[in-house]
């Protein structure tokens, strides 16, 4: 009797909610659609007015705009030509790069040695310089002739071609460097031209018809800046996005069950690590550190907390890396042996040790609780506190902590671990949170930094990594997987765990 009114009201509300519904329809056909535009959900949003020394350079690279002199080929695991066709170490501290001929910026100006020199010098002059390309790694850039750029380094640097593949070493046309900042619109060399930006939302790109690398298959695309992982996962599931980068572990099961989505997985260069403060008791004692390593079942942590989005770590490197430890195995768990090590080390405590779990990684709170329980079993009492990294960083840099759950990118902007090995573990390392100092290790890393032969260099990395593992400097918990969700109608997508390349000329969508 009174219900009809209520029903109408409810119906009205539902109609209001459902208005403007956009039904998703899809026609599957194998042919590539040359008019297709592709939507990529990126986890990173540009915040620095496209400053190339900042992480905004990643967004420009992902969008198919920004290119560099060299490029790191993930499959071949080597540096390959991009805007430079060849390079050579002309003297101990200088490298000469020969530019690709016939390349023009999207505004029509030619790529020449002067424009490259100006672009690199602009980044080098930044107040907060890039990690891979800064005055400490590059002392000068000059144009030798119209087609040759000379890059000088403060000391011999066999890895300079790697640095030139860093997105921060990207090259834009001279017109992009304005007094108000970087203007990338129409000033790149890549397969796509940025045409419009919705601040904090997205960047729209169109095909570069004159791309030096040949025909570009897509008509264009949109890079959306979606920082929430579950939202990115939802968008690739609904078809609102064609590619969603960095799918969180919590969304994996849903996407795996969806036949319209494929998951691209690769070892990421990030390892979740339990940092142990080697500079003070009790972790200045190697036996206590080894006991902690033996106590933890890292494979179980990977399976339970990470739900398949990570694998138990075998040491400081992922097994797929060319410098991975030989015959590396996940450390065996042996609680009894760990307990004996703790007892024989003379370990005593008058208060619980503190495990700091950084809040930037939500899963660390759960990991911390598991570690706390395991430590208790071997006679070490601990507490878990969650803090934001920013809040705790000064304390960490001073060495004022016991244990820290954090994660670290081994390949800090270059596809090589040298920066990580130097900064994190050498006696004078700028980010040596563990407080580890071993002259033998420093010697190995110095030798690696100067080694020209790649195979020999990788071998030195391996030896250094083995030393870290033998000294149980930290507990490397899990190697994280880079997981991207890709709609089945997308073709030509090559996943880059370093998140630099997405919109390439070969990326396409089928009709």
């Amino acid at each position, binding site marked *: 009797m*009174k219900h009809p009114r209520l029903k109408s009201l409810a119906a009205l509300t539902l109609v209001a909610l*459902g208005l403007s519904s956009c039904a998703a329809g899809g026609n599957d056909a194998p042919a590539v659609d040359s008019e297709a535009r592709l939507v990529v959900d990126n986890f990173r949003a540009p915040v620095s007015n496209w400053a190339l020394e900042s992480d*905004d350079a990643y967004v420009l690279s992902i969008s198919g705009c920004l290119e560099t002199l060299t490029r790191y080929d993930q499959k071949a695991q080597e540096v390959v030509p991009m805007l430079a066709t060849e390079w050579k170490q002309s003297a101990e501290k200088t490298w000469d790069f020969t530019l690709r001929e016939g390349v023009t910026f999207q505004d029509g100006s030619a790529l020449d040695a002067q424009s490259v020199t100006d672009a690199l010098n602009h980044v080098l002059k930044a107040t907060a310089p890039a990690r891979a390309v800064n005055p400490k790694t590059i002392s000068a850039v000059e144009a030798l002739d119209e087609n040759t750029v000379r890059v000088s380094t403060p000391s011999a640097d066999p890895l300079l071609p790697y640095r030139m593949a860093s997105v921060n070493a990207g090259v834009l046309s001279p017109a992009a460097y304005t007094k108000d900042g970087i203007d990338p619109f129409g000033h790149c060399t890549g397969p796509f031209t940025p045409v419009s930006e919705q*601040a904090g939302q997205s960047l729209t790109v169109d095909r570069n018809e004159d791309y030096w690398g040949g025909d570009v298959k897509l008509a264009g695309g949109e890079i959306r*800046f979606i920082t*929430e992982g579950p939202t990115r996962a*939802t968008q690739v599931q609904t078809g*609102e996005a064609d590619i969603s980068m960095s799918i969180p572990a919590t969304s994996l099961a849903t996407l795996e069950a969806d036949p319209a989505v494929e998951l691209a997985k690769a070892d990421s260069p990030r390892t979740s690590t339990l940092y142990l403060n080697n500079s003070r008791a009790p972790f200045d004692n190697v036996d206590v550190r080894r006991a902690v390593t033996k106590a933890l079942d890292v494979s179980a942590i990977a399976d339970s907390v990470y739900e398949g989005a990570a694998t138990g770590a075998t040491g400081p490197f992922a097994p797929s890396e060319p410098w991975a430890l030989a015959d590396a195995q996940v450390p065996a768990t042996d609680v009894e042996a760990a307990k004996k090590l703790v007892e024989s080390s003379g370990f005593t405590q008058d208060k619980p040790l503190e495990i700091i779990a950084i809040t930037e990684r939500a899963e660390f709170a759960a990991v911390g609780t598991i570690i706390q329980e395991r430590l208790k079993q071997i006679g070490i009492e601990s507490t878990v506190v969650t803090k934001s990294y920013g*809040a705790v960083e000064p304390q960490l840099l001073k060495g004022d902590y016991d244990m820290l759950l954090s994660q670290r990118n081994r390949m800090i902007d270059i596809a090589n671990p040298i920066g990580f090995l130097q900064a994190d573990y050498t006696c004078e390392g700028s980010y040596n949170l563990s407080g580890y100092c071993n002259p033998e290790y420093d010697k190995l890393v110095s030798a690696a930094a100067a080694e020209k032969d790649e195979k020999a260099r990788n071998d030195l990395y391996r030896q250094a990594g083995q030393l870290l593992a033998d000294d149980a400097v930290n507990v490397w918990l899990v190697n994280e997987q880079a997981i991207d969700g890709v709609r089945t109608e997308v073709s030509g997508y090559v996943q880059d765990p370093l998140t630099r390349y997405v919109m390439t000329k070969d990326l396409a969508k089928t009709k």
Partner: protein
Amino acid sequence: MTPVLSLLLRRALGLGAAVLLSSIAVFLVPFVSPGDPVRNLLRARMDLGTADDATVAAYAEQLGLNEPLWKQYLDWLGRFLHGDMGLSYVSGTPVVDRVLPALGVTLLLAGSAILIAVLVSIVLGVISALRAEKLSDRTITSITHALIAIPEYAMAPLAVLLFAVRLAWLPSAGLSSAASLVLPVAVLCLRPISFFTIAVRSGVLETLGSEHVLAARARGLNEARVLLRHVIPHSLLPLSTMTGVWFAGLLGGSVIVEVIFALPGMGRLVYDAIVDSDLPMAQGGVVLVVMCAVLVTTVVDLIHQLSDRSANLEVSGVS
């Protein structure tokens, strides 16, 4: 001085005080929080950064962060009073270029949510009051009470799952079309609907028993006319106050919805700015929100005063 003028004067003074206090509070946040504000800024530009001390010092110098705190604040205030919100410490671009579009998004979001909440709650509240203690009243009351307890962070994913994933009717996130606003607005308006409906129901019930309604009925007016002319207008006065307060709250308080639905609104902008220690951005955003909030509540109070005067005149039989 007329009451309206007096109100406007008081509000103008209040606005000045509110801007001053809120900007001081925001200004102090990075300095009373643990961590180094300059490293926070650098981290916003370069992920989990490991900037060395020299870089941190150079960046601080460039931004003038080595100056005494009071000087930094007065510099900002001086610029602000001249209409200059300054440059973002992270992007180096004018703050105004970011806060105004963000304010636009939030005004659209909050305005739509409040408008829908008002319309729906008037209908529900009146039905509920007219059918007091009957099934429809009990149903509406139960639903509105239940909705009060469901926070946005729980309702938003449910709405996405149902309307974006399962039914594929609406976009799950972003701001690409008007349809993108439907889910966030729907999520944001649910709790105000609940509170407003309770207020309208109670107001209508109270007004129904008032003398002037009895008088209207005695004059032989039919029920619909009594309801439309004498009951509903008088019952909505408390709602206007609530509307102002909720609207002001949503201007800065819709951060969760903005994050989940990837909307570039003011809540998210200010939250990110505070996390990154981007003081000019945070101050510009908060001050703008405070100004809007004071403006909205002033307008609501003015409506109140004018309504009271007209109600007094009506009761005394002038109209």
